[in-house]
């Protein structure tokens, strides 16, 4: 797709500048949006506070539907930040898709498997730690031989599959969405005025659909996150 990735090496690790720049922009957007919405907090909510409270209720609802109320604790906060970040990251590439010197500078970080697998890894790690913290190390290990010992390899594969599918699902959706946007844009500019009008309409249509996909994927990601955590902390 958009040519080379802008990679650079630092401390012996390879970094992708595209992801770093886009990520920083999205972090800034997420923080300032949430910061701006929580400035004037009143007992009787108005305007932005209503939106923020609705959002919090929404993610709390996701968490509460998966685990008992006394377990929700910090997970609702994690789910809230995760949802807002992934939502903005998914939509980001629909609006900004900047290439410079034949290399991408701005796009959805969630269209990169490394980033999505990072979040997937974070979620799975959190789930396993939560399981150990909640049931003790013995109880956590016993979870692998349930319902009986023969299921051990299946359970291990399942954990691995959870990690991969959680990250690759969102990567596939967002990556495909952006790829199609680029292809449609390429078609639109290929034959001048003849293709620019239908290309424009098609692009508009697909962008609208991608907004929908991005929201759904953010919701699915957070829902699965809570499912994986709740499976570890509860019987």
């Amino acid at each position, binding site marked *: 797709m958009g040519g080379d990735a802008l*990679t650079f090496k630092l401390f012996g690790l390879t*970094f992708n500048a595209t992801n770093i720049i886009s990520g920083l922009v999205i972090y800034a957007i*997420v*923080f300032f949006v949430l910061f701006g919405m929580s400035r004037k907090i009143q007992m009787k909510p108005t305007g932005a506070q209503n939106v923020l409270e609705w959002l919090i209720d929404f993610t709390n609802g996701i968490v509460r539907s998966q685990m008992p109320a006394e377990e929700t604790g910090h997970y609702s906060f994690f789910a809230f930040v995760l949802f*807002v*970040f992934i939502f903005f990251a998914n939509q980001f590439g629909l609006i900004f898709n900047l290439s410079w010197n034949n290399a991408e500078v701005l796009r959805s970080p969630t269209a*990169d498997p490394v980033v999505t697998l990072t979040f997937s890894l*974070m979620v799975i790690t959190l789930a396993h730690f939560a399981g150990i913290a909640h049931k003790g190390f013995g109880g956590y290990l016993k979870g692998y031989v349930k319902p009986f010992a023969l299921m051990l390899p299946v359970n291990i594969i399942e954990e691995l599959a959870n990690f991969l599918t959680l990250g690759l699902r969102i990567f596939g959706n967002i990556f495909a969405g952006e790829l199609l946007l680029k292809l449609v844009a390429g078609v639109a500019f290929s034959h001048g005025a003849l293709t620019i009008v239908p290309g424009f309409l098609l692009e508009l249509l697909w962008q609208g659909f991608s907004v929908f996909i991005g929201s759904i994927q953010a919701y699915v990601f957070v829902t699965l996150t809570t499912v994986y955590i709740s499976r570890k902390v509860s019987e």
Partner: protein
Amino acid sequence: MFVNSVLAESNSLYIGDLVFYIVTFIILMLLVKHFAWKPITDMMKKRADKIANDIDNAAKSRESAEKMAAQRQAELKNSQQEAADIVNNAKKSGETQRAQIIESAQNDAQALKQRAQQDAEQARRDALNGAKDDVANLSIEIASKLIHKELNEADQKELIDSYIEGLVDHES
């Protein structure tokens, strides 16, 4: 495509992004928790408490209002009863007063009538007596006039004597 996208052109997996995203996401969580999540959830909790309190208070005040309404109703019933009693008493006393007034009026009328009858009787009797006297006097006068022509001195004297005798008889 997938391999391309993961390994990029340099054919090295950019693990650095993993570290970058984990660290920055944790920083974002800390910032959001401090600036947005804490104040908002605190306020939501406060509001939930306040609403619960308000509901309790509303239930309490409704109860007291109901009690008051029942009290008012009872008082109203009492006052209605009282009003009815007052009207009844007034009616009764009016009735008795009416009866008394009628009775006294009847008595008065009776007395007046009696007096009038007595007066009339008296007048009649007086008139009758007066008439008797007049008749007597007239008859005496007529008689004396008649007699005066025919009686002489002696007879007249005898007559007067007989009269006087009669008077004496009459008086005794």
